[in-house]
Each structure stands twice: as C-alpha cells, then as structure tokens.
C-alpha cells in the first residue's frame, strides 16, 4: 500500500517526467531516479508503481519493450509516446498551477 498518499495524484506526472528525462527506463530505474533526484524526499512504492505503469501504457502514453540492462539483466523498458509527451505537458501545467495556488495560499498569512 502506498505510504506517500499525497503523491498519488502526481504519480503519473513523476513517471512521465522521469521517462522524459531518461528517455527509456525500467521500473526499478524509475524508482531510483525519483528517489535520487528528489534527494530521498520522494519514494515511489512498488505497489503503486507497477499498476500505474500498466495503466499509463494501456492509456497509450508510454510504450514498453524488453531489453538487456547495462548489467546484462533482462528488464522491461518504458519510453514516452507522442501522446505521452502531450500528456506530460498538460500534467506539468496543471501541477504548476496547483503549486502556485498552494504557495499563494501559504504566503497569504
């Protein structure tokens, strides 16, 4: 069960953004990337990652293929599709609006 509940809504955004930055990555790599880039602030639970990956793939925003990793292990790699890029732009915008809104609310005091 996901512990960082507040991340649930933005999980899609995190996955799409990660794939946009890395080009192509497997599930474990996505978890590590988000953790490292966010200085350990954001942790993705596997329990929510894989359902999300498969849901996003079903939606057609990402595609996947099996490849051999740098340490010679077979893994499933995900990459953004054209539709995924548009979706990322949309999600990024709406996320920024949310952040802006929350910030102005916090400053108000």
């Amino acid at each position: 069960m996901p512990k960082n509940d507040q991340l649930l809504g933005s999980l899609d955004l995190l996955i799409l953004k990660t794939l946009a930055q890395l080009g192509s990555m497997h599930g474990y790599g996505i978890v590590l990337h988000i953790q490292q880039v966010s200085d350990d602030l954001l942790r993705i639970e596997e329990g929510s990652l894989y359902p999300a990956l498969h849901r996003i793939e079903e939606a057609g925003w990402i595609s996947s293929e099996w490849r051999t990793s740098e340490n010679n292990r077979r893994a499933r790699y995900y990459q953004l599709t054209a539709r995924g890029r548009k979706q990322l732009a949309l999600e990024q915008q709406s996320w920024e609006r949310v952040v802006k809104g929350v910030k102005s609310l916090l400053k108000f005091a």
Partner: protein
Amino acid sequence: MSIFSRISSVFRSHKLDQELDDELRSHLEMRAADNMSAGMSAEEAQLEARRRFGNPALIKESTRAQRIVLWLETVLQDARFGLRMLRRTPGFTLVAVLTVALTIGATAAVFTVVNSVLLRPLPYQNPDRLLTIAVFMPRSNDEVMATPQYVAFKTGSRILEDAGAYSPEDYNVSGTGEAERLHGVAATASFFTTLGIQPAIGHVFSAEEDRPGAEKVAVISHSFWQRHFNSDKDVVGKTILLDGVPHVIAGVLSPSFRFPDTSLQPEIMVPAAIPASFDASQPMLIVQAIGRIKPGVSVAQANSDLETVYQQYLAGTGAKFGAFFAGSTVHTRLLKTELVGPVRRPLLIIMTAVGCVLLIGCLNIASLQLARAVQRSQEVGVRSALGAGKLRLLRQLITENLVLSCCGAVGGIVIALVAAALLRAARLSALPSVAEIRVDLWVLGFAVLITLLSGLFFGLAPALWVNRAAPAEAIGKGNRATAGSGHRRVRNLLVVAELAIAVVLLAGAGLLVHSFSRVLAVDPGFDFHNVLTARVSFSLTTLRQQEPRFALIDNVTQEVRALPSVESVGITNSLPLMPYETSLSVIIEGKPVPPMGMSPFVSVAAVGAEYFQTMKTALVAGRHFNESDTRTSTSVAIVNQAFARKFFPGEDALGKRFRVPTPGPPAPWTTIVGIVTDVHHLGLAQNVSPEVYSPLSQSRIYDGVTFVLRTSELESTSAALRRIVAKLDPAQPVSDVTSMEQKLSASLAARKFNMVALGAFALLALVLAAVGIFGVLSYSVAQRSHEIGVRMALGSDRARVIKLILLEAAWLSLAGTLIGVGAALALTRFMASLLYHTRPTDPLTMVSVAVLLIGCGVLAGYVPALRASRVDPMIALRAE
C-alpha cells in the same frame, strides 16, 4: 473441459501474465544486486528487497486489474473457483440450486401467466384507448345495450374516435361439406376499424355492406377457412349458407386474430346492419359496444361525456321507453379491465402465493449461505491475512453467488417453459388468452432480475455479515468456535419464518381443497355418469314450422331408442350446467297476486320422452309426464322441491295450479302433477332456484332441443346419433356433443385450477421449509458433534441423542406453526369469495395444516438426528 475454462482460454493471455512475473522478478533482482554492492550478504539483500517490495501477489493483482482482458479473466477465474467450491460441497450445491430453480421456476411461471393475462396489451391498435360501453339498469341489476342506444353514443359523443358493436349469434352452416352449428357474431363495419383489425385475405365488410338490405356478406375465421375451404386462396366471392341464407365471403381473418370476448371465438362474422334511425315497430338487437376514445381522454371524462349523451337520448325517447330505462346510467370500463375482471382476484391470490414461495426460497438460500459462510470464515480470514484485498474478496463472493444463482436460474427458466407449455396444452377455459401464454423477454428479464436480487441480497448479505470480523479473530478461533449462538439464532429465526409462511400457504390451499370437496359432495340432482348429450338447433329458415320440428325430434327419438347401446332417451330444451333457457314470472292460484312486474321468476324447461328417468332425477311425489299429456289436454307441470318449498311452504304442492301473468285475458291454469328433487342447474356451487318442467308436447320449441342418452358406450353412440340425424335431415347439424361428466368438469375447471395452483405452491413451500429445517439441524449437528460426543461419552444413549435433535425440530416447527396459523387466520378472509360452504377460519383445515407441518418438520429432522446418533465419541473428542 468445463465450459468456463473453454471460454477463458479465449481471453487468457499467458504471455501478459508471464511478462508481469518477469518484470517484477527483474525489479527484485536489481534491488538485491544493489543491496549486495552496498555490502549486504546475499541472503540479507534478498530479504531486504522483498520487504521493500511488499506483497508481490497484491501488486500483480492490482496491475492485472489495469488490463481489461485480465480483469475479465479474473472474473472467469472467480467463476471457476466458485464452481470448484460448489463441486466440493455437492449437498449444499444441490439443495441451493434446486431451491433457486424451483422458486425462480414457480415465480417465472406465474409471472408468465400474469403477464399474458393481465399485463400484456390486448392484440389491438392502441388497446389502452378501448372501452366497453354499457347501460346499467338498477332495477334488474344488469348491464344492457341495445342498438338505438349504441347509435346514439356513436353519433352523439364528442370523445369517441370510433365505436363498434357486435352481437353473438350461432348459425347452422351448410353448403360446404357436412352441416355444422357454429358460433358467429353479427358485427358493425366499425367494429373492425375500432379495434384496427386487418384480414389475412380479402377485406372486412365496408360501411356500404353493413346497411340494412345490402347484399349478404360474411368474414370467416382462419380455422374455418382451413377446414371448409382447404386454405383456398381464391375464397373471396364464394358462397356459404348461414341458416340456409347464401352469404358471399368477403375475407378471411388472420390466424392471430383474437375476438375480445375469448369465450365466443366466432368462426363467422356477418354485418350487423344496424339502421341509422329507429321507430317503435323495429325490433331492437341487444349488442355489446366497444369504443375507442380520442387520445388524451380519460375513462372518467369518457364516462361523463357518454352519460350526457345518454340522458339527452333518453329525454328524446317516448315516455314508455323512459319509464323502462328509469334510473339507468352509463358504465364504461377499459376493455382490458372488463376482460380480465373475473380472473383478477384468483390470479392475485396465486401471485401472492408464489411471492411467498419466493420469499421462503430466499430465506432458505440466506440460511444455507449463512451456514456456509460460517464454515468458510476461517478460509476467508486466511485469504485476507495473506493479502487479498477487501474488494477482491467481495468480488469473489459476489461471483460465487451469481454462479449459484445462474445455475438455479437456468433450471428455473426450464421449469417456467415447461409450465407454460403445459398450461397452453391444458387449454383452460378458466383463463382468458390462455393460448397466448408464453415465456417472452419480459418474463426472462423478470427471472434474471429476481435471480440477481435474490443471489446478491440473500446470498451475499449473510456472507458479509459473518466475515465482518477481523481476519486474526477468524483464524484464531478456528472453525467451530466462530459458529456462535448468534448465527444459530438467526438461522432458527429464518427457518421459523419459512415455516410460518408455508403454514399460511398450506392453510389457503387446504381451504380450497376443503371447499372443493364440499362442492363435489353436492348432490347435483342427477346422475352425471354415462350420459351423452347432443344439441339439435333449429334455425328460422330451416324447419320454420313447429310440426316438422316435432316430427324430426320424434323420429330421432324412435331411432336412437332402438340403438342397442342406449338404455333410455330424454329430451330437454334446458340442460343442467348450461344457462336457463326461459324464465317466467308466475301467479299461484288462491294466493295474493303481486303487482305487475313484481311476480317472482321461475325458470322453465320443456322435457320430453324419459327425461327424468334418463337423468336419474328422482320423482319425489306425483307422476311423470305420459302419453295422456297432449297439446289439447289440461296443461300440466312437474316442479322441483325448491318451487314447492317457496310457493307452498307446509302444504302439498301436488294438484295446485299456477299461471303466467298476462296483460290481456288470463292464461289457462297449469296443474302440478309431480315433484322432482332439486337439480343444481347453474353449477354445483350455485343455489337451486324454483324450476318448472312442462311436457314437450305442450310446449313450443324455439331454438332447439338437447337429447340426453343414458349409455355406457359414449363414443360409438355419439357417432350413431350423428348418422341418424344426418339421415333424417342432411341440412340439420348436431352440436355440443359431450358427456354430462365433461360438462360437469368444465363447470368446475376454474375452481379446480385455483385449487391445483395454490396447492402446488403450498406443497412447494412445504418442501422448501422442510429443506430449511433439514439444513439448520444438519448444520447444528455438525457444529455440536463435540458436545454430542461428550454426552455420549458420559453415558447418553443413541435414543436420547435422537430425541434431543428431534425435539429441536419439533420446537422450530411448533413456533413456525403457531405464528403461521395466527397469520393465516388473519389473511384467509381475503379468499372468502373463492370458498364454498367453508369458513375462511375452518378449524379442521387449520388443525390438519398444523399437524402436517409439525409432522414434516420432525420428519425433516430425522436424518440429522440419525447422523447425530452415529457420532463416534472418540473421534469427536479427539478432533479438539
């Protein structure tokens, strides 16, 4: 290979499954590898990776759920699992599926009938705008409609879009093969336009053909066309003789055509040719009128508009007419209401009965599921502890219940189909539109709906209720301890409720059986065994005169009497179990004469030859008619005992005289020469009214006569009779050839149908309730095997253990019976109108039902009791 696995193989995608496995494994391996490079041991690295990963099964489940194909597959998997669980407990499955099948079958069958008879629209255009129009006469408490009134409505009303009228009329049909007496109808051309009826061939009659003096035309039924014209397509323009008059065939009705009054089923329809205006010299025809109201007009509006038209019409007619119709009002009803009126209450009672059966079935399923849920609570607990999501478990339970319900529903629909076919085949005259009784989409939809509702509500609710406990609790307590007294109390309550409902149904059915036996015990006043009846009807055109009619009757009587198979022959113009032929008011000699029009009515039958001897109606006093009673001798009569009781209480009726009141010179007196026992003329359950029999030789013959033949060879004698009449007069048809026994059973058909239907449902209820008791006790024995083992180890013997369980059965039955009898006493008065000489609270019936139910309850407890007595104390105690 089961059907389910075959279906699922279509959807199953091993590849997707396999890939997900691989993906998750590679994730774990990568994490473990990273852990090792961070300095952990191989084992530690694996463990840490797994701990962080969480429950792989759950991840798999929810990931799979993202894919529609896989979601479908889980449903099928659940269904497969459900089937497997059901196979593992064949006893439970059999009882549950049978319960569902029987209840859904019974409910769907009754709904089929109700749907066909009460709900389905009539097979006419816009049937909800069709009304019957009649004039109610408060003086005679009767409804009547004559042609002038019909014309007044049709021309005067603003709310009627169209209106038609018809009048039943039987015809002697000849000119196409053997002469036949057939039901016909004289109808207006507007009758067809009002109902929106199109013929299969030719045309229905036009307004021009429906005028007095127009060329005679006829429209024939589809079956008449097949029988008499061999389905000849060029039938239009051919001629048939109706009562000897040539009629040109205008058209053939379609095979699906149903006449509004299903008891008529006319084969021939001719124009009524109602004149547009009336004068006093013209005879009035009594008709039935059907109107189509304009869209948006309510029945109440129609009634008030027609009432206005009618009162204006009455005011316009002469004073004599006005006095005759004084106080009369217009009665309009929806055609549908009119047609289903008499069967409404019995059908509603049967519907209530089947509703009760459904309820008992549902309670049974609830009780069974409760027991099963308790047994499975450990399994469910373990599964939820292993990480099965709450929704996932819920879905599993729902699927299992639906699998069970669906198996039952399939059986139920089969039962409903068979029942509908049986009902159609039985051709019950008691039910209108019996031929249209069929299982349609509405019925199937209804069956599916109750299946889903009963499966979900009565199957799922108990399972959820039992499994609301935390998993740790369920596992910790184990199997036996979870079956707390709470669950047992609920199951006992369910069973007591089932028994109580069954008692109400049994009481209702018992009352009908009791009432039916009372009806059968009625002495009809004649011996209905081995009596053949055959009617010879005269038309106005053939044998117009009285003399040739009498000559034909005499000749037929002579020849029939000579048949070796015939013991005796009688003649009557008014056969018992048929409507009265004639009713007259009488004045008794020496008694005060009531004012004109207030004299009491008696029914009159003309009888000839050895009528009373043939019918075995006993002569109580006086003599039979004989040769000395002729047209010229003194007018004589035989009366029934009811007549003697009514007009001569405490006196001897023999030798007394009566006459018919006439406005002009008084009619001659008629002398009573004999008294016969009362005959239940209108039916066994009908009261006997005063009757007069006059000798045929002193009567006039109007419509025709019925021959009654006492013979043990009904088949061959009826053929011989037909041959004799055909030889004497080839144009003279013989109709209504049946036995008195058939007439009697036809007169009891409606009563019997109600009794059999309610009886069947009561029996079903009893069986289901017995299954309920059986289930509860079997379960209770299984749960208490430890306790029973202890008891036996402490010296209790088998008999005592059996007694212990039977006592439980007896207590449950007694509680159910007491509640049920109380409810029955309150409810059975609603069926009082269906009962004959039977009080709705008949104590004998109530006691019999109580004894029957308690007996069945204890019997149902016997198998579990035996099982309890076979508990091996050693095994029971070791099981701890």
